[in-house]
Protein backbone atom coordinates (compact mmCIF):
# COMPACT_ATOMS: atom_id res chain seq x y z
CA UNK A 1 0.00 0.00 0.00
CA UNK A 2 2.79 2.39 0.86
CA UNK A 3 4.45 1.81 -2.48
CA UNK A 4 1.13 2.27 -4.22
CA UNK A 5 0.56 5.64 -2.58
CA UNK A 6 4.11 6.70 -3.41
CA UNK A 7 3.60 5.86 -7.05
CA UNK A 8 0.50 7.97 -7.39
CA UNK A 9 2.11 10.97 -5.80
CA UNK A 10 5.13 10.59 -8.07
CA UNK A 11 2.90 10.37 -11.12
CA UNK A 12 1.02 13.55 -10.39
CA UNK A 13 4.05 15.73 -9.63
CA UNK A 14 6.09 14.26 -12.45
CA UNK A 15 3.28 14.64 -14.91
CA UNK A 16 2.69 18.31 -14.22
CA UNK A 17 6.38 19.20 -14.61
CA UNK A 18 6.94 17.22 -17.76
CA UNK A 19 3.57 18.18 -19.23
CA UNK A 20 4.28 21.85 -18.69
CA UNK A 21 7.54 21.83 -20.62
CA UNK A 22 6.70 19.45 -23.43
CA UNK A 23 2.95 19.66 -23.74
CA UNK A 24 2.72 16.14 -25.20
CA UNK A 25 0.33 13.97 -23.18
CA UNK A 26 1.42 10.73 -24.87
CA UNK A 27 5.10 11.03 -23.96
CA UNK A 28 4.26 12.25 -20.50
CA UNK A 29 2.40 9.09 -19.60
CA UNK A 30 5.17 6.86 -20.90
CA UNK A 31 7.85 8.71 -18.98
CA UNK A 32 6.06 8.57 -15.64
CA UNK A 33 5.23 4.88 -16.08
CA UNK A 34 8.87 4.06 -16.71
CA UNK A 35 10.05 6.02 -13.67
CA UNK A 36 7.30 4.45 -11.62
CA UNK A 37 8.40 1.00 -12.76
CA UNK A 38 11.95 1.72 -11.69
CA UNK A 39 10.94 3.08 -8.31
CA UNK A 40 8.57 0.17 -7.77
CA UNK A 41 11.26 -2.35 -8.72
CA UNK A 42 13.89 -0.89 -6.43
CA UNK A 43 11.43 -0.46 -3.58
CA UNK A 44 10.45 -4.13 -3.73
CA UNK A 45 14.05 -5.30 -4.15
CA UNK A 46 15.24 -3.14 -1.26
CA UNK A 47 14.40 -5.39 1.73
CA UNK A 48 16.12 -8.40 0.16
CA UNK A 49 19.17 -6.35 -0.76
CA UNK A 50 19.42 -4.73 2.67
CA UNK A 51 19.30 -8.09 4.48
CA UNK A 52 21.88 -9.66 2.17
CA UNK A 53 24.11 -6.60 2.36
CA UNK A 54 24.05 -6.62 6.17
CA UNK A 55 24.40 -10.33 6.75
CA UNK A 56 26.42 -11.59 3.77
CA UNK A 57 28.19 -8.93 1.72
CA UNK A 58 29.35 -6.60 4.48
CA UNK A 59 30.76 -9.43 6.65
CA UNK A 60 32.41 -10.96 3.59
CA UNK A 61 34.18 -7.70 2.68
CA UNK A 62 35.06 -7.10 6.32
CA UNK A 63 36.39 -10.67 6.42
CA UNK A 64 38.69 -10.01 3.48
CA UNK A 65 39.88 -6.84 5.22
CA UNK A 66 40.58 -8.41 8.62
CA UNK A 67 42.33 -11.39 7.04
CA UNK A 68 45.24 -8.97 6.49
CA UNK A 69 45.14 -7.71 10.07
CA UNK A 70 45.95 -8.67 13.61
CA UNK A 71 42.40 -9.45 14.67
CA UNK A 72 42.03 -11.37 17.91
CA UNK A 73 39.58 -10.99 20.78
CA UNK A 74 42.14 -8.66 22.42
CA UNK A 75 42.04 -6.07 19.65
CA UNK A 76 38.60 -6.34 18.07
CA UNK A 77 38.08 -2.60 17.76
CA UNK A 78 41.48 -1.84 16.35
CA UNK A 79 42.52 -4.31 13.61
CA UNK A 80 46.13 -3.57 12.62
CA UNK A 81 47.79 -4.42 9.31
CA UNK A 82 50.18 -7.29 9.97
CA UNK A 83 51.80 -7.68 6.53
CA UNK A 84 50.29 -11.04 5.56
CA UNK A 85 50.97 -12.45 9.04
CA UNK A 86 47.78 -14.54 8.98
CA UNK A 87 48.53 -16.00 5.59
CA UNK A 88 52.13 -16.75 6.63
CA UNK A 89 50.84 -18.46 9.76
CA UNK A 90 48.50 -20.65 7.74
CA UNK A 91 50.95 -21.64 5.05
CA UNK A 92 54.05 -21.97 7.27
CA UNK A 93 53.17 -25.28 8.88
CA UNK A 94 51.77 -26.86 5.71
CA UNK A 95 48.59 -27.11 7.75
CA UNK A 96 46.55 -25.40 5.07
CA UNK A 97 47.51 -27.93 2.41
CA UNK A 98 46.63 -30.73 4.83
CA UNK A 99 43.18 -29.20 5.49
CA UNK A 100 42.65 -28.58 1.79
CA UNK A 101 43.55 -32.20 1.09
CA UNK A 102 41.01 -33.34 3.70
CA UNK A 103 38.37 -31.09 2.18
CA UNK A 104 39.00 -32.42 -1.32
CA UNK A 105 38.85 -35.97 0.03
CA UNK A 106 35.60 -35.25 1.86
CA UNK A 107 33.96 -33.42 -1.06
CA UNK A 108 35.19 -35.96 -3.60
CA UNK A 109 34.17 -38.91 -1.42
CA UNK A 110 30.66 -37.67 -0.68
CA UNK A 111 29.85 -36.36 -4.15
CA UNK A 112 31.22 -39.40 -6.01
CA UNK A 113 29.46 -41.96 -3.82
CA UNK A 114 26.24 -39.95 -3.84
CA UNK A 115 26.41 -39.64 -7.60
CA UNK A 116 26.96 -43.34 -8.29
CA UNK A 117 24.31 -44.41 -5.78
CA UNK A 118 21.79 -41.85 -7.01
CA UNK A 119 22.39 -42.59 -10.68
CA UNK A 120 21.81 -46.33 -10.18
CA UNK A 121 18.69 -45.81 -8.05
CA UNK A 122 17.24 -43.12 -10.32
CA UNK A 123 17.69 -45.36 -13.38
CA UNK A 124 16.01 -48.25 -11.54
CA UNK A 125 13.16 -46.01 -10.39
CA UNK A 126 12.73 -44.74 -13.95
CA UNK A 127 11.89 -48.24 -15.29
CA UNK A 128 8.22 -49.19 -15.50
CA UNK A 129 7.85 -50.21 -11.87
CA UNK A 130 4.72 -49.83 -9.80
CA UNK A 131 4.67 -47.42 -6.89
CA UNK A 132 7.38 -45.09 -8.17
CA UNK A 133 5.91 -42.10 -6.33
CA UNK A 134 5.83 -44.03 -3.07
CA UNK A 135 9.44 -45.19 -3.46
CA UNK A 136 10.50 -41.65 -4.34
CA UNK A 137 8.87 -40.27 -1.20
CA UNK A 138 10.31 -42.97 1.03
CA UNK A 139 13.80 -42.36 -0.30
CA UNK A 140 13.50 -38.66 0.43
CA UNK A 141 12.82 -39.31 4.10
CA UNK A 142 16.42 -39.35 5.31
CA UNK A 143 17.00 -36.03 3.56
CA UNK A 144 14.49 -34.34 5.89
CA UNK A 145 16.30 -35.44 9.07
CA UNK A 146 18.12 -32.43 10.61
CA UNK A 147 21.88 -32.45 10.13
CA UNK A 148 22.62 -32.42 13.85
CA UNK A 149 20.41 -35.48 14.29
CA UNK A 150 22.19 -37.20 11.40
CA UNK A 151 25.56 -36.69 13.04
CA UNK A 152 24.38 -37.97 16.42
CA UNK A 153 22.45 -40.88 14.95
CA UNK A 154 25.47 -42.02 12.94
CA UNK A 155 27.85 -41.51 15.87
CA UNK A 156 25.66 -43.99 17.70
CA UNK A 157 25.41 -46.43 14.78
CA UNK A 158 29.21 -46.34 14.40
CA UNK A 159 29.81 -46.64 18.15
CA UNK A 160 32.31 -49.53 18.72
CA UNK A 161 30.51 -51.48 21.49
CA UNK A 162 26.80 -50.79 21.05
CA UNK A 163 26.68 -49.63 17.44
CA UNK A 164 24.63 -51.44 14.87
CA UNK A 165 27.25 -50.99 12.15
CA UNK A 166 29.80 -53.25 13.84
CA UNK A 167 27.12 -55.80 14.71
CA UNK A 168 25.94 -56.08 11.09
CA UNK A 169 29.44 -56.19 9.61
CA UNK A 170 30.56 -58.76 12.19
CA UNK A 171 27.54 -60.99 11.61
CA UNK A 172 28.26 -60.89 7.89
CA UNK A 173 31.88 -61.84 8.67
CA UNK A 174 33.15 -58.68 7.00
CA UNK A 175 35.21 -57.59 10.01
CA UNK A 176 37.11 -59.69 12.54
CA UNK A 177 37.01 -57.35 15.52
CA UNK A 178 33.41 -56.98 16.80
CA UNK A 179 34.36 -53.73 18.55
CA UNK A 180 36.05 -52.05 15.61
CA UNK A 181 36.86 -48.34 16.08
CA UNK A 182 35.56 -46.13 13.27
CA UNK A 183 35.33 -42.47 14.21
CA UNK A 184 38.33 -42.55 16.54
CA UNK A 185 40.48 -44.42 14.04
CA UNK A 186 42.61 -42.06 11.88
CA UNK A 187 42.21 -44.37 8.88
CA UNK A 188 38.43 -44.71 8.98
CA UNK A 189 37.14 -41.47 10.55
CA UNK A 190 36.87 -39.76 7.18
CA UNK A 191 34.89 -42.71 5.86
CA UNK A 192 32.51 -42.41 8.81
CA UNK A 193 31.71 -38.73 8.26
CA UNK A 194 31.36 -39.34 4.50
CA UNK A 195 28.92 -42.18 5.20
CA UNK A 196 26.69 -39.94 7.33
CA UNK A 197 26.72 -37.18 4.72
CA UNK A 198 25.90 -39.59 1.89
CA UNK A 199 23.02 -41.03 3.91
CA UNK A 200 21.53 -37.57 4.29
CA UNK A 201 22.30 -36.09 0.88
CA UNK A 202 22.02 -38.96 -1.63
CA UNK A 203 18.18 -38.81 -1.65
CA UNK A 204 18.37 -35.25 -2.91
CA UNK A 205 20.43 -36.41 -5.86
CA UNK A 206 18.10 -39.35 -6.54
CA UNK A 207 15.12 -36.97 -6.78
CA UNK A 208 16.97 -34.54 -9.02
CA UNK A 209 18.30 -37.16 -11.42
CA UNK A 210 14.93 -38.93 -11.51
CA UNK A 211 13.21 -35.63 -12.37
CA UNK A 212 15.76 -35.13 -15.14
CA UNK A 213 15.22 -38.67 -16.47
CA UNK A 214 11.46 -38.22 -16.54
CA UNK A 215 11.80 -35.05 -18.57
CA UNK A 216 13.70 -36.86 -21.34
CA UNK A 217 11.78 -36.58 -24.60
CA UNK A 218 9.99 -39.93 -25.13
CA UNK A 219 9.92 -39.43 -28.92
CA UNK A 220 13.70 -39.67 -28.94
CA UNK A 221 13.60 -42.84 -26.84
CA UNK A 222 10.99 -44.39 -29.15
CA UNK A 223 13.05 -43.48 -32.20
CA UNK A 224 16.12 -45.11 -30.65
CA UNK A 225 14.10 -48.23 -29.82
CA UNK A 226 12.76 -48.46 -33.41
CA UNK A 227 16.30 -48.13 -34.75
CA UNK A 228 17.22 -51.10 -32.56
CA UNK A 229 19.70 -49.23 -30.36
CA UNK A 230 20.87 -51.19 -27.32
CA UNK A 231 20.16 -49.94 -23.79
CA UNK A 232 23.73 -48.75 -23.35
CA UNK A 233 23.81 -46.88 -26.67
CA UNK A 234 20.45 -45.25 -25.98
CA UNK A 235 21.72 -44.21 -22.55
CA UNK A 236 24.96 -42.71 -23.87
CA UNK A 237 23.59 -41.00 -26.96
CA UNK A 238 20.05 -40.00 -25.96
CA UNK A 239 19.56 -40.00 -22.20
CA UNK A 240 22.91 -38.63 -21.04
CA UNK A 241 22.91 -35.53 -23.30
CA UNK A 242 19.32 -34.75 -22.25
CA UNK A 243 20.09 -34.82 -18.54
CA UNK A 244 23.58 -33.28 -18.74
CA UNK A 245 22.42 -29.88 -17.50
CA UNK A 246 20.51 -31.38 -14.56
CA UNK A 247 23.49 -33.55 -13.66
CA UNK A 248 25.83 -30.55 -13.81
CA UNK A 249 23.61 -28.40 -11.61
CA UNK A 250 23.07 -31.19 -9.11
CA UNK A 251 26.76 -31.99 -8.86
CA UNK A 252 27.79 -28.37 -8.39
CA UNK A 253 25.13 -27.88 -5.69
CA UNK A 254 26.39 -31.02 -3.91
CA UNK A 255 30.01 -29.89 -4.19
CA UNK A 256 29.19 -26.50 -2.67
CA UNK A 257 27.14 -28.24 0.04
CA UNK A 258 29.91 -30.65 0.97
CA UNK A 259 32.47 -27.83 0.97
CA UNK A 260 30.34 -25.89 3.48
CA UNK A 261 29.56 -28.92 5.66
CA UNK A 262 30.37 -28.19 9.27
CA UNK A 263 27.71 -29.70 11.51
CA UNK A 264 28.32 -33.36 10.65
CA UNK A 265 32.10 -33.29 10.98
CA UNK A 266 32.19 -31.00 14.00
CA UNK A 267 29.80 -33.20 15.99
CA UNK A 268 31.04 -36.61 14.87
CA UNK A 269 34.81 -36.21 15.06
CA UNK A 270 35.43 -32.50 15.84
CA UNK A 271 38.09 -32.59 13.13
CA UNK A 272 40.07 -35.42 14.73
CA UNK A 273 41.59 -37.95 15.17
CA UNK A 274 45.04 -36.48 14.37
CA UNK A 275 43.26 -33.71 12.40
CA UNK A 276 42.39 -36.31 9.78
CA UNK A 277 38.90 -34.91 9.30
CA UNK A 278 39.75 -31.22 9.72
CA UNK A 279 38.31 -29.65 6.60
CA UNK A 280 38.58 -25.97 5.75
CA UNK A 281 35.32 -25.07 7.49
CA UNK A 282 36.38 -26.86 10.69
CA UNK A 283 39.84 -25.28 10.52
CA UNK A 284 38.45 -21.76 10.01
CA UNK A 285 35.97 -22.20 12.87
CA UNK A 286 38.62 -23.53 15.26
CA UNK A 287 41.13 -20.84 14.33
CA UNK A 288 38.51 -18.15 15.04
CA UNK A 289 36.50 -19.48 17.96
CA UNK A 290 38.80 -21.95 19.77
CA UNK A 291 42.16 -20.22 19.26
CA UNK A 292 40.46 -16.78 19.19
CA UNK A 293 42.43 -15.68 16.14
CA UNK A 294 39.67 -14.19 13.98
CA UNK A 295 42.17 -12.87 11.43
CA UNK A 296 43.67 -16.27 10.67
CA UNK A 297 40.19 -17.81 10.50
CA UNK A 298 39.16 -15.19 7.97
CA UNK A 299 42.33 -15.79 5.96
CA UNK A 300 41.38 -19.48 5.57
CA UNK A 301 37.92 -18.32 4.49
CA UNK A 302 39.35 -15.96 1.88
CA UNK A 303 41.52 -18.59 0.20
CA UNK A 304 38.61 -21.00 0.35
CA UNK A 305 36.35 -18.45 -1.36
CA UNK A 306 38.89 -18.00 -4.13
CA UNK A 307 38.92 -21.77 -4.71
CA UNK A 308 35.12 -22.06 -4.69
CA UNK A 309 34.59 -19.11 -7.02
CA UNK A 310 37.11 -20.56 -9.46
CA UNK A 311 35.20 -23.85 -9.49
CA UNK A 312 31.86 -22.06 -9.95
CA UNK A 313 33.18 -19.82 -12.76
CA UNK A 314 34.61 -22.82 -14.62
CA UNK A 315 31.29 -24.60 -14.19
CA UNK A 316 29.29 -21.59 -15.45
CA UNK A 317 31.47 -21.20 -18.53
CA UNK A 318 31.21 -24.91 -19.31
CA UNK A 319 27.45 -25.11 -18.75
CA UNK A 320 26.91 -22.07 -21.00
CA UNK A 321 28.81 -23.85 -23.73
CA UNK A 322 26.65 -26.94 -23.13
CA UNK A 323 23.40 -24.99 -23.39
CA UNK A 324 24.48 -23.45 -26.68
Amino acid at each position, binding site marked *: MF*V*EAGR*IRWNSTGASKKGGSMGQPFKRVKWTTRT*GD*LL*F*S*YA*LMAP*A*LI*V*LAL*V*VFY*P*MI*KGIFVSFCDYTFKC*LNNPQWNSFGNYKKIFESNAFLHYLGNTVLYVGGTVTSQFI*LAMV*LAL*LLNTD*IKGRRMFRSL*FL*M*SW*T*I*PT*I*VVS*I*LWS*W*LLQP*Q*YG*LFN*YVLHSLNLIKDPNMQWLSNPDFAMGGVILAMV*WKQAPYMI*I*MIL*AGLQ*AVNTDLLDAAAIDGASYLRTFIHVVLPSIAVVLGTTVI*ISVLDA*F*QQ*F*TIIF*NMTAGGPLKKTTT*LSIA*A*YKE*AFTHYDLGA*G*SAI*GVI*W*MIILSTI*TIIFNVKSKRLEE
Partner: protein
Amino acid sequence: MSIVKKNIGITRIVTYLVICFFLLLFLFPIYWMFLASLRDNPTVMSMPPKFAPSITTLQNYVQIFSSPKYLVYIKNSLIVATSTVLICLCISTMASFVLSRYRFPFKKVLLSSLLSVQMFPIVAILISLFTFFSKMKLTNNYLGLILADISMSLPLAIWMLKSFFDTVPRSLDESAAIDGCGRFRILVEIAFPLIKPGIAAVAIYTFLKSWDDYMFGLVLMNKNSMKTLPVGIAESFMGEFVHNYAGMMTLAFIASLPLLLLFIFFQRYMIVGLTGGAVKE
Protein backbone atom coordinates in the same frame (compact mmCIF):
# COMPACT_ATOMS: atom_id res chain seq x y z
CA MET B 1 8.93 -65.35 -26.80
CA SER B 2 8.40 -67.08 -23.50
CA ILE B 3 12.11 -66.88 -22.67
CA VAL B 4 12.12 -63.14 -23.33
CA LYS B 5 9.06 -62.67 -21.17
CA LYS B 6 10.59 -64.72 -18.39
CA ASN B 7 13.74 -62.59 -18.56
CA ILE B 8 11.74 -59.40 -18.28
CA GLY B 9 9.98 -60.88 -15.25
CA ILE B 10 13.29 -61.70 -13.62
CA THR B 11 14.84 -58.28 -14.28
CA ARG B 12 11.76 -56.68 -12.82
CA ILE B 13 12.03 -58.75 -9.65
CA VAL B 14 15.73 -57.91 -9.38
CA THR B 15 14.89 -54.21 -9.84
CA TYR B 16 12.41 -54.34 -6.97
CA LEU B 17 14.85 -56.25 -4.79
CA VAL B 18 17.68 -53.78 -5.35
CA ILE B 19 15.40 -50.79 -4.73
CA CYS B 20 14.02 -52.34 -1.55
CA PHE B 21 17.50 -53.21 -0.31
CA PHE B 22 18.66 -49.60 -0.62
CA LEU B 23 15.37 -48.34 0.79
CA LEU B 24 16.03 -50.48 3.85
CA LEU B 25 19.50 -48.94 4.23
CA PHE B 26 18.04 -45.44 4.05
CA LEU B 27 15.05 -46.01 6.31
CA PHE B 28 16.43 -48.35 8.93
CA PRO B 29 18.42 -45.72 10.88
CA ILE B 30 15.23 -43.65 11.28
CA TYR B 31 13.33 -46.69 12.53
CA TRP B 32 16.19 -47.55 14.86
CA MET B 33 16.24 -44.04 16.30
CA PHE B 34 12.48 -44.09 16.88
CA LEU B 35 12.65 -47.53 18.48
CA ALA B 36 15.46 -46.46 20.83
CA SER B 37 13.36 -43.53 22.01
CA LEU B 38 10.74 -46.02 23.29
CA ARG B 39 13.20 -48.21 25.17
CA ASP B 40 15.28 -48.07 28.30
CA ASN B 41 19.06 -48.03 28.12
CA PRO B 42 19.76 -51.73 28.91
CA THR B 43 17.50 -52.73 26.00
CA VAL B 44 19.05 -50.11 23.71
CA MET B 45 22.57 -51.27 24.48
CA SER B 46 21.87 -54.98 24.51
CA MET B 47 23.91 -57.17 22.19
CA PRO B 48 22.70 -58.80 19.99
CA PRO B 49 20.32 -55.92 19.21
CA LYS B 50 16.56 -56.47 19.44
CA PHE B 51 15.22 -55.51 16.03
CA ALA B 52 11.55 -56.31 16.58
CA PRO B 53 9.40 -53.33 17.55
CA SER B 54 8.78 -53.28 21.27
CA ILE B 55 8.00 -50.55 23.75
CA THR B 56 9.54 -50.83 27.19
CA THR B 57 9.13 -47.27 28.48
CA LEU B 58 7.85 -43.79 27.72
CA GLN B 59 10.09 -42.36 30.43
CA ASN B 60 12.46 -40.77 27.87
CA TYR B 61 9.73 -38.52 26.53
CA VAL B 62 8.50 -37.68 30.01
CA GLN B 63 12.05 -36.75 31.02
CA ILE B 64 12.56 -34.39 28.09
CA PHE B 65 9.13 -32.75 28.12
CA SER B 66 9.33 -32.17 31.86
CA SER B 67 12.73 -30.53 31.67
CA PRO B 68 12.38 -26.75 31.29
CA LYS B 69 15.77 -26.59 29.54
CA TYR B 70 14.65 -28.57 26.51
CA LEU B 71 11.28 -26.84 26.34
CA VAL B 72 13.13 -23.52 26.08
CA TYR B 73 15.31 -24.86 23.25
CA ILE B 74 12.25 -26.11 21.39
CA LYS B 75 10.45 -22.80 21.93
CA ASN B 76 13.46 -20.82 20.63
CA SER B 77 13.76 -23.00 17.55
CA LEU B 78 10.05 -22.62 16.81
CA ILE B 79 10.16 -18.83 17.22
CA VAL B 80 13.21 -18.46 15.00
CA ALA B 81 12.07 -20.87 12.29
CA THR B 82 8.52 -19.55 11.93
CA SER B 83 9.61 -15.89 11.92
CA THR B 84 12.26 -16.73 9.35
CA VAL B 85 9.66 -18.37 7.11
CA LEU B 86 7.21 -15.46 7.35
CA ILE B 87 9.74 -12.68 6.80
CA CYS B 88 11.61 -14.58 4.11
CA LEU B 89 8.35 -15.20 2.22
CA CYS B 90 7.43 -11.48 2.22
CA ILE B 91 10.88 -10.32 1.17
CA SER B 92 11.40 -12.96 -1.51
CA THR B 93 7.90 -12.60 -3.01
CA MET B 94 8.42 -8.89 -3.54
CA ALA B 95 11.91 -9.26 -4.94
CA SER B 96 11.11 -12.19 -7.21
CA PHE B 97 8.00 -10.45 -8.61
CA VAL B 98 9.92 -7.44 -9.86
CA LEU B 99 12.76 -9.66 -11.08
CA SER B 100 10.24 -11.63 -13.11
CA ARG B 101 8.19 -8.68 -14.42
CA TYR B 102 10.27 -5.51 -14.69
CA ARG B 103 13.40 -4.47 -16.46
CA PHE B 104 15.74 -2.23 -14.53
CA PRO B 105 19.46 -1.41 -14.46
CA PHE B 106 21.72 -3.94 -12.68
CA LYS B 107 19.07 -6.66 -12.83
CA LYS B 108 21.42 -9.27 -14.29
CA VAL B 109 24.15 -8.37 -11.81
CA LEU B 110 21.65 -8.73 -8.97
CA LEU B 111 20.46 -12.13 -10.16
CA SER B 112 23.93 -13.58 -10.50
CA SER B 113 25.22 -12.05 -7.28
CA LEU B 114 22.28 -13.72 -5.51
CA LEU B 115 23.61 -17.07 -6.63
CA SER B 116 27.18 -16.20 -5.67
CA VAL B 117 26.05 -16.00 -2.05
CA GLN B 118 25.96 -19.79 -1.91
CA MET B 119 29.65 -20.17 -2.58
CA PHE B 120 30.75 -17.69 0.08
CA PRO B 121 32.29 -19.66 2.93
CA ILE B 122 29.71 -19.49 5.71
CA VAL B 123 32.39 -19.79 8.40
CA ALA B 124 34.24 -16.74 7.09
CA ILE B 125 30.99 -14.74 7.01
CA LEU B 126 30.20 -15.97 10.49
CA ILE B 127 33.48 -14.64 11.92
CA SER B 128 32.85 -11.04 10.85
CA LEU B 129 29.13 -11.35 11.42
CA PHE B 130 29.79 -12.32 15.03
CA THR B 131 31.84 -9.19 15.77
CA PHE B 132 29.39 -7.01 13.82
CA PHE B 133 26.32 -8.42 15.57
CA SER B 134 28.06 -8.19 18.97
CA LYS B 135 28.48 -4.46 18.43
CA MET B 136 24.87 -4.09 17.26
CA LYS B 137 23.63 -6.07 20.32
CA LEU B 138 22.19 -8.69 17.96
CA THR B 139 23.83 -11.68 19.61
CA ASN B 140 21.58 -13.57 22.02
CA ASN B 141 18.76 -11.83 20.20
CA TYR B 142 16.09 -13.57 18.12
CA LEU B 143 16.31 -10.88 15.44
CA GLY B 144 20.02 -11.54 14.83
CA LEU B 145 19.60 -15.27 14.24
CA ILE B 146 16.44 -14.69 12.18
CA LEU B 147 18.29 -12.25 9.92
CA ALA B 148 21.14 -14.72 9.49
CA ASP B 149 18.76 -17.59 8.69
CA ILE B 150 16.80 -15.45 6.23
CA SER B 151 19.90 -14.52 4.30
CA MET B 152 20.87 -18.19 3.95
CA SER B 153 17.50 -19.13 2.38
CA LEU B 154 16.81 -15.91 0.53
CA PRO B 155 18.84 -16.42 -2.68
CA LEU B 156 17.29 -19.77 -3.56
CA ALA B 157 13.84 -18.61 -2.40
CA ILE B 158 14.01 -15.66 -4.80
CA TRP B 159 15.15 -17.83 -7.70
CA MET B 160 12.45 -20.41 -7.00
CA LEU B 161 9.63 -17.85 -6.75
CA LYS B 162 10.91 -16.03 -9.83
CA SER B 163 10.57 -19.20 -11.87
CA PHE B 164 6.99 -19.57 -10.56
CA PHE B 165 6.11 -15.95 -11.40
CA ASP B 166 7.56 -16.53 -14.87
CA THR B 167 4.86 -19.15 -15.48
CA VAL B 168 2.02 -16.68 -14.75
CA PRO B 169 0.95 -15.19 -18.12
CA ARG B 170 1.75 -11.49 -18.48
CA SER B 171 -1.58 -10.91 -20.22
CA LEU B 172 -3.22 -11.23 -16.80
CA ASP B 173 -1.15 -8.34 -15.42
CA GLU B 174 -1.81 -6.26 -18.48
CA SER B 175 -5.56 -6.66 -18.42
CA ALA B 176 -5.55 -5.90 -14.69
CA ALA B 177 -3.46 -2.78 -15.34
CA ILE B 178 -5.92 -1.61 -18.02
CA ASP B 179 -8.71 -2.01 -15.47
CA GLY B 180 -6.81 0.45 -13.31
CA CYS B 181 -5.12 -2.02 -10.99
CA GLY B 182 -1.89 -0.64 -9.48
CA ARG B 183 1.42 -2.51 -9.55
CA PHE B 184 1.32 -3.65 -5.96
CA ARG B 185 -2.28 -4.81 -6.24
CA ILE B 186 -1.38 -6.83 -9.35
CA LEU B 187 1.23 -8.61 -7.23
CA VAL B 188 -1.04 -9.21 -4.24
CA GLU B 189 -4.37 -9.91 -5.94
CA ILE B 190 -3.49 -11.34 -9.35
CA ALA B 191 -0.06 -12.99 -9.37
CA PHE B 192 0.31 -14.12 -5.76
CA PRO B 193 -2.78 -16.39 -5.65
CA LEU B 194 -1.59 -18.13 -8.81
CA ILE B 195 1.76 -19.24 -7.37
CA LYS B 196 0.51 -20.83 -4.15
CA PRO B 197 2.39 -24.11 -4.79
CA GLY B 198 5.58 -22.07 -5.15
CA ILE B 199 4.87 -20.22 -1.91
CA ALA B 200 4.31 -23.55 -0.15
CA ALA B 201 7.54 -24.95 -1.58
CA VAL B 202 9.55 -21.92 -0.48
CA ALA B 203 7.93 -21.89 2.97
CA ILE B 204 8.84 -25.53 3.53
CA TYR B 205 12.36 -25.08 2.19
CA THR B 206 12.96 -22.07 4.45
CA PHE B 207 11.57 -23.85 7.51
CA LEU B 208 13.76 -26.88 6.83
CA LYS B 209 16.89 -24.76 6.49
CA SER B 210 16.19 -22.61 9.51
CA TRP B 211 15.24 -25.55 11.75
CA ASP B 212 18.38 -27.33 10.57
CA ASP B 213 20.73 -24.43 11.25
CA TYR B 214 23.41 -25.29 13.77
CA MET B 215 26.35 -23.04 13.02
CA PHE B 216 24.73 -19.61 13.31
CA GLY B 217 22.86 -20.72 16.42
CA LEU B 218 26.11 -21.99 17.94
CA VAL B 219 27.95 -18.69 17.48
CA LEU B 220 25.19 -16.09 17.77
CA MET B 221 23.30 -17.57 20.75
CA ASN B 222 25.42 -18.52 23.76
CA LYS B 223 23.04 -17.74 26.62
CA ASN B 224 21.22 -20.87 27.79
CA SER B 225 17.84 -19.15 27.58
CA MET B 226 18.42 -18.26 23.91
CA LYS B 227 19.94 -21.47 22.51
CA THR B 228 18.17 -23.30 19.73
CA LEU B 229 17.38 -27.01 19.66
CA PRO B 230 20.27 -28.20 17.42
CA VAL B 231 22.82 -26.50 19.70
CA GLY B 232 21.08 -27.92 22.74
CA ILE B 233 21.18 -31.41 21.25
CA ALA B 234 24.89 -31.17 20.47
CA GLU B 235 25.61 -30.02 24.02
CA SER B 236 23.64 -32.73 25.74
CA PHE B 237 25.28 -35.30 23.48
CA MET B 238 28.62 -34.27 24.99
CA GLY B 239 27.24 -33.75 28.50
CA GLU B 240 24.03 -34.95 30.11
CA PHE B 241 23.26 -37.73 27.64
CA VAL B 242 26.82 -38.87 26.99
CA HIS B 243 26.10 -42.51 27.88
CA ASN B 244 22.34 -42.32 27.71
CA TYR B 245 21.65 -43.34 24.14
CA ALA B 246 17.94 -43.81 24.70
CA GLY B 247 17.56 -40.25 25.96
CA MET B 248 19.76 -38.95 23.16
CA MET B 249 17.73 -40.69 20.47
CA THR B 250 14.49 -39.40 22.02
CA LEU B 251 15.74 -35.83 21.79
CA ALA B 252 16.96 -36.48 18.25
CA PHE B 253 13.61 -37.91 17.24
CA ILE B 254 11.73 -34.97 18.76
CA ALA B 255 13.92 -32.61 16.72
CA SER B 256 13.21 -34.58 13.53
CA LEU B 257 9.48 -34.82 14.13
CA PRO B 258 8.41 -31.38 12.78
CA LEU B 259 10.32 -32.00 9.56
CA LEU B 260 9.01 -35.57 9.21
CA LEU B 261 5.44 -34.29 9.68
CA LEU B 262 5.95 -31.50 7.14
CA PHE B 263 7.36 -34.10 4.80
CA ILE B 264 4.46 -36.52 5.22
CA PHE B 265 1.78 -33.87 4.62
CA PHE B 266 3.48 -31.58 2.11
CA GLN B 267 5.94 -33.77 0.24
CA ARG B 268 4.36 -32.82 -3.10
CA TYR B 269 5.44 -29.20 -2.59
CA MET B 270 8.81 -30.28 -1.28
CA ILE B 271 9.56 -32.21 -4.44
CA VAL B 272 8.31 -29.30 -6.58
CA GLY B 273 10.57 -26.97 -4.65
CA LEU B 274 13.58 -29.25 -4.93
CA THR B 275 13.31 -30.00 -8.62
CA GLY B 276 11.64 -26.76 -9.77
CA GLY B 277 14.81 -24.73 -9.49
CA ALA B 278 17.05 -26.97 -11.53
CA VAL B 279 14.81 -28.86 -13.93
CA LYS B 280 13.36 -27.02 -16.88
CA GLU B 281 10.16 -28.67 -17.96
